[in-house]
């Protein structure tokens, strides 16, 4: 049986198919399919609480890998973690002077993260970035984009958005619907393996 796939984008595969025809295997989704006798893969819920560079990095590595492995992956972003998902171009956020002052003291955006130790006024993150490029390690921003492309859902915490005076237009594209603690507890006690970073 030959079926048309709407996700087919590869010109090389098209060219080969034009000559040879599509292979006659059944189309199966990538995210998937437990082998017979195996338990179904559980979902993954990462709670991204920290805005520190090293922890955001860990979150993005695990989220993108989990998405790549076909595991249904959600990242609940709350408190300092929410600052990470504000657009890099936003310098000042908030509706009143206290919220604005918080954003001035701690610049939002995934490309402006600080290390929790050895920050040295930005020298630490700068050296980390240089080392990462040298050793072919993807930046948190690249991993975030890969995770989103692989279907990882990033859910902002509504309470934190209110507290910091963040509006949906302050946030990066592709964020999920804001939710709260009950949603998180429901996932934790349901099908998701929880991870708090």
């Amino acid at each position: 049986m030959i079926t048309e796939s709407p996700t087919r984008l590869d010109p090389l595969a098209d060219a080969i198919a034009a000559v040879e025809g599509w292979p006659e295997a059944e189309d199966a989704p990538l995210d998937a399919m437990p082998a017979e006798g195996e338990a179904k893969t559980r979902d993954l819920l990462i709670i991204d609480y920290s805005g520190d560079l090293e922890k955001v990095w860990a979150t993005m590595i695990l989220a993108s890998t989990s998405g790549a492995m076909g595991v249904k992956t959600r990242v609940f972003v709350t408190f300092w973690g929410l600052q990470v998902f504000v657009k890099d171009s936003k310098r000042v956020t908030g509706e009143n002077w206290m919220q604005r002052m918080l954003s001035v003291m701690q610049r939002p955006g995934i490309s402006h993260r600080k290390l929790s130790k050895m920050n040295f006024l930005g020298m630490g993150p700068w050296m980390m970035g240089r080392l990462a490029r040298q050793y072919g390690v993807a930046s948190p921003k690249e991993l975030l984009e890969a995770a989103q492309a692989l279907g990882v859902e990033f859910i902002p915490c509504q309470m934190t958005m209110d507290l910091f005076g963040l509006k949906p237009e302050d946030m990066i594209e592709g964020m999920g619907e804001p939710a709260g603690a009950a949603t998180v507890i429901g996932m934790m006690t349901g099908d998701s393996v929880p991870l708090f970073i």
Partner: protein
Amino acid sequence: MPVIEISQSIDARGLSCPLPIVKTAQAMKTLRSGATVELIATDHGSIKDVAAWCRATGNILLEQTSDGAVYRFLIRRT
């Protein structure tokens, strides 16, 4: 042994974890079932990671070879 048609080749040389896996998964999404992907990587961790990824996603690791510190994997999309 029949010649395996490679639909797409991914050059992940010089890239660290988790990029070889992430790039493979992204490529797989664009391919048909039965298509074969060639992954070339230098990340030593990819020896274990590619096998783990194939087990988790149900894709088939057809072949795994190495030339010094360069690893080559042939993976068939299920």
